[in-house]
Every structure is written in structure tokens, then in C-alpha cells.
């Protein structure tokens, strides 16, 4: 019993010290006496998507370096947390960073599932989140005053991609879709139906595939039996890479494979040039975007990392750059002031003229459609594709489920 009592006392003391410590940290921050500002990157540093976390970090570091890691006279302290791509871990790491490091602003998450889990914490703890990922919930049903969305809206993506297809290939009208059976895929399917109807395209059918599928020949066998003009892959990651490989084996030259939000540059490297040649893809970012901010970014990125930036690194760079710009305009590093400034803010980003929707917090930016090159047309190992179109049509208001009012 005495032992138990001793432990309890020790625990009480520890808890008291921790509470006092965190309270003091809070007071220090609230009074603005600290000469440092903590910003963070929360993403996958280990696990299947470890590459993405590293790239987000590379981009964010470049944005900080542009300002010598300082803003409004404060030194910026960068914290990095690994969420392993798991929502529960992501929530824990964010909470730790807020209490232990006084994190106030973070880019997170490259994964929608983790980002949405962190959205609740961001709102509760009143910290600033700039999220990526394909879920429309960030700016829809779960829109939050503390969360902004960097990636394009699924509607914008589908509309841009299918609009290009309908203009460039006017004789291709019949679409078959193969969709990932989780929220992201279903969201893409929903907006494929919307955009196809707007553009007069016919949907022949759809098959949902489970996450982690490694055998796609049966889906293509079924899809090809309906004689489609286009097969739309509404899936992503390793599943998408496998699907493209296996579609390639059918040699179906008359059927155009389209990936509205399917593969990013990081995954294109995993396909042989022959497999990706002719593929039409919708992308959140591509290195050839012809804007002054992007040209500078690509040049600095090449110099620093001997590579070209991709979606993940562009997200890290542009989200951090935008937050810092908003701080400068707000003349404050307080979360509430920065949020207020960002709502409706117009600025030049890597995409050129960009704005942020004040109500939904969606970054209003273009979405890019690229066509992958034949190997003989590639000027370098990174020259995967040509930008053939871009579109920035926002989600129709009547389809948005965000209940926030400005």
C-alpha cells in the first residue's frame, strides 16, 4: 500500500509539473513574449508513403529559407512529426507538438484520412492547419474555421480533366470508371457523374475495387466488354500504378486511359515510359507551370535537391509560403489574425493568381491536365509529360455542404 501511495504522489507531482509547464507555455504565447514561432510539418516519414513526408518537408524548408527562417522579427522553429499515415498516430503527434513545442501552424496532412482526423484537434486547440489530400470534406461537410485546403477540389479536378478529353477527343464519349472503394474514390466518382453530365459524356458503368487491390485484369476484362472510348481510373497510389501496368498489357490502343486524380509525378517514375506514354492525367501540380513563383521554386528546388518538385513538395512549399505571406499581411503571428487575413486573400502563388474562399477555406487554384510523353520525346529523366490544359472551375455552390457563414 505504501508503495502504491508513493507512486500516486509521484504521479501527482509529475502531473502538476506538466500542467504548470503547459500553462506557462500558453501564457508566454498568449502574451507574445516568445521570440520564436513554431511551425510544423505533420506527414508520413515512415511506412508505405514515407516518400511523401520527406518531400513535403523539403518544400517547406525551401519556403522557410526564403525568409531566413524568420517572420515579423521572430525566429521560426520547424518541428516535424511522423504520423506513419495513420489517423490515430497523426492526432497523437499533433497533440504532442501543440503541448510540447507550442506548435501554432502546420502543414498536414498529405493523406486526407489523417488530415481529417487532425482537423478536429486543430479546431479544438485553435491552431492553424493547411491540409492537402483529395477529400472534399475539408471544405464541405466538415469545413472548419481553423483548416484550409491546398489541393484542388475534386469537382475542379474532374471538370478540368473531362473537359480536356471532350475537347481534344470529341469522338470519345463513352466512359467506364474503375473506382477505389473508399471515401476519396467515391468522391471522385460523384464528381465524374456531375462533370460527365455537364459535358455530355455517357457513363457506361462503374466497378468499385477494394483498397490494396493487386489484380486488375478482371476489371479491365469487364470494362472492355462494354466497348468504352475512355476508361477513367478513379483510384490512386500503388493501386493506380498496378492498374496502369495491367491495362498496358491489354494493348487496347483505341481506348484512352484517363486518370483525373490518379498518379502524381512521384508515381510516374514507377512506370516504364512505354506504360505511361499517352496517358492523360489530372494533376494538382506539375513542374512546368509557367508562373514566376513556380519558376523560381523549381530552380531553387533543383539546386537544393538535384531533382524536380512534385505534388508533395509543392504542397510543402506553397502552403508554408502562403501562411508566411498571410502573417506578413496580417502583421501578426496570432492564429486568429492569420485566418482572418487568409479568408478571401488574393495573392500570387506557384499557380499564378490565386485566392482563398472565405467561407469554405478552399484554395481557388487551377488544376492541370497533362499527357505523358513517349520516351523519345523526353528531354530529361524528369520530363514525363506536357501540360495540355488547365481548369479552375469551382465546385457549384449547390453541391457544397459546408455550413459555415462568413
Amino acid at each position, binding site marked *: 500500500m505504501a508503495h502504491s501511495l508513493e507512486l500516486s504522489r509521484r504521479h501527482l507531482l509529475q502531473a502538476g509539473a506538466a500542467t504548470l509547464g503547459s500553462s506557462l507555455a500558453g501564457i508566454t504565447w498568449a502574451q507574445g513574449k516568445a521570440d520564436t514561432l513554431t511551425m510544423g510539418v505533420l506527414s508520413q516519414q515512415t511506412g*508505405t508513403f*514515407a*516518400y511523401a513526408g520527406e518531400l513535403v518537408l523539403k518544400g517547406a524548408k525551401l519556403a522557410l529559407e526564403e525568409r531566413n527562417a524568420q517572420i515579423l522579427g521572430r525566429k521560426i522553429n520547424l518541428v516535424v512529426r511522423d504520423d506513419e499515415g495513420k489517423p490515430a498516430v497523426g492526432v497523437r503527434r499533433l497533440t504532442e507538438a501543440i503541448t510540447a513545442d507550442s506548435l501554432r501552424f502546420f502543414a498536414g496532412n498529405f493523406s486526407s484520412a489523417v488530415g481529417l482526423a487532425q482537423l478536429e484537434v486543430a479546431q479544438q486547440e485553435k491552431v492553424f492547419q493547411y491540409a492537402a489530400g483529395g477529400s472534399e470534406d475539408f471544405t464541405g461537410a466538415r469545413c472548419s474555421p481553423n483548416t484550409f485546403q491546398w489541393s484542388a477540389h475534386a469537382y475542379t479536378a474532374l471538370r478540368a480533366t473531362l473537359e480536356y478529353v471532350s475537347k481534344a477527343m470529341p469522338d470519345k464519349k463513352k466512359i467506364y470508371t474503375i473506382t477505389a*472503394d473508399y471515401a476519396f474514390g467515391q468522391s471522385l466518382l460523384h464528381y465524374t457523374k456531375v462533370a460527365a453530365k455537364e459535358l455530355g459524356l455517357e457513363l457506361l458503368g462503374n*466497378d*468499385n*475495387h*477494394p483498397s*490494396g*487491390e*493487386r*489484380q486488375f*485484369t*478482371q*476489371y479491365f*476484362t*469487364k470494362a*472492355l*466488354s462494354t466497348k468504352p472510348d475512355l476508361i477513367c481510373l478513379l483510384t490512386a497510389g*500503388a493501386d493506380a*500504378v*498496378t492498374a496502369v*501496368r*495491367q491495362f*498496358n*498489357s*491489354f*494493348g*487496347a490502343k483505341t481506348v484512352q486511359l484517363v486518370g483525373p486524380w490518379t498518379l502524381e509525378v*512521384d*508515381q510516374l*517514375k*514507377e*512506370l*516504364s515510359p*512505354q*506504360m505511361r506514354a499517352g496517358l492523360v492525367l489530372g494533376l494538382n501540380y506539375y513542374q512546368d507551370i509557367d508562373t514566376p513563383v513556380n519558376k523560381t521554386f523549381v530552380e531553387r528546388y533543383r539546386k537544393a535537391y538535384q531533382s524536380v518538385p512534385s505534388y508533395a513538395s509543392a504542397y510543402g512549399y506553397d502552403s508554408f509560403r502562403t501562411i508566411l505571406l498571410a502573417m506578413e499581411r496580417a502583421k501578426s503571428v496570432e492564429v486568429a489574425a492569420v485566418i482572418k487575413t487568409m479568408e478571401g486573400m488574393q495573392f500570387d502563388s506557384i499557380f499564378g493568381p490565386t485566392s482563398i474562399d472565405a467561407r469554405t477555406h478552399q484554395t481557388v487554384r487551377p488544376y492541370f491536365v497533362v499527357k505523358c510523353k513517349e520516351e523519345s520525346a523526353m528531354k530529361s529523366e524528369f520530363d514525363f509529360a506536357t501540360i495540355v490544359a488547365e481548369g479552375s472551375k469551382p465546385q457549384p455552390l449547390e453541391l457544397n455542404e459546408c455550413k459555415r457563414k462568413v
Partner: protein
Amino acid sequence: MASLIAAQVVNGLMIGMLYALTAFGLSIIKGLLNVPNFAHGAFYAFGAYVCFAAHKVGLPFALALALSFVVPALLGVVIEKFGLTRLMQAPYLYQLLFLFGAALVMEQLIIIIWGAEGLSMSPPDVFQGAFDLGFTVVPRYLVFNGLMAGLTIVAVYLLIERTRFGSQIRAGIDKREMAQCLGVDIGRLITAGFGLGAGLAGFSGGLVLPLLGATATMGNDMMSIAFVVLVIGGLGSIYGAIAAGLLIGVIQSVSTVFVPAASTVLIYVVMVVTLMVRPQGLFGER
């Protein structure tokens, strides 16, 4: 509808042959060691990378494919001879842990050597495109895969059923003590059997490379299916793995016509039902 189902059956048989080949190697090792080879998936991945590397340095695809058998088989021999053998007298759990550790080491070695990004290799020109069967089209490379897997299974069948080495393997699986009493060197047999199983796993990896690509963790995906095939076919039943592999391939493919989203979960449903109705598997003995 009938032609679509027929098309899916054809597709399923081709996929099923690959499942059968992978589970076949697993079944041989399980039979000999009485331990499920947790490193089987890693050998499968290793085979894919060996095939990729060999083709990349300019070797013809056929030779690259042969190496995807030989190199993992030799690695299997080394792992068995210098690792597993020492644990033969130890409890079952130690062997399992050893194989699990070996799989992790192999996965990490693959990442160190070839990187974490996936790799792709296009099928040879002769296997580009598809056969038009009238009611469906089947990728030529998928047909080649199915045929090669089938031929390999036949070759191993002949090795096991028609050779002295094969009869010793069968004896080692069915009546180990008796075989030992009759002078069969069980230690050497287990080493050779482990090498054969590892080689078959590697060969499967090499075969599927143009269809699935290569990733360090690709073995995990295959392992789950291989174990399902093994359980349905009957643990220890070498030939049960073939029938079960084909069955799973056809179920997975045909179910896409009716319930595509459930095509993967159906595989596990079949395994659960098999365990409930016939716990020893379709071809296993009680």
C-alpha cells in the same frame, strides 16, 4: 452475360495458375519443415527484383526469368543451411521468428539496393497486346504467365513424382522418421526442398513483374493469398494448392461481374467456410 462470365473464367484461370505456383512452393516447405515459411513473400519480391536487375543489364527476358528462380533458390539454401538448421531442435516458435526476421532483413536489403520506389518492366515485344478470343480479349502476357506457371508446376510434379529426389521429398513429408531410418539424409533434403520452394517463390515474382511491378513489400500482398490457397487446398497437400489456386483465381475474377467491391473479401469467406466445413482443406487428410 454468359460471354462475360466465360471471359472472367479464362482470366481467373490465368491468375489462378500464378496463385497456385506461389502456394505450391509454400506448400513444399510447409510439408518438409512443418513450419509456414514467413519469408516466402520476401523470396517472391526478391525474385522480381533479380529479374528486373538482370533484364536491366541487358540479359534476355528468358535468362532474367531463369535467374529469378536460381538466385532466390541459392539464397534459400544459404538461409536454411546456416540459419534454420541450427534451430531444428528448438521450439516451433523460434523457427517462425527466424523466418519472420529473415523476411524483414530481405525487405530492407531490397530497399537499400533498389530503393523504396516501385519498379516496372514492360513485357517482351512478343507478349505485347492481347489475344482476341471472340468473346473476350486476354493479354498475351497473362496467357504466358498462366502457361509458364502451369508448365513449372508440371515440371515440379514430375520432379517429385518421377525422380529419386522427389520420392525422398514425399517420404520426408509423409514419414520423416521412416525415411531417416532408411538412410535418407533428411537434413540435405530439407535444405534442397527449402531452396526449391524459395526458387519457386522467386520465379513467381519474376513472372508477375511486367504485370504487378516490383516493390519491396509486394510479398505481403501475395503471402496473404498464398496462405489462403494453402488452407483451402489443405495444409501439407502439395496438389491441393494447385486446385485451390485455380479456384481462388476464378472466384476472384467471376465475382467482379456481380460484386466487384467484394472480390477480395470473397476469397477469405471461402477460406472461412472451408475451415468450418472441412477443416483439413479440400485435399488435406485429417
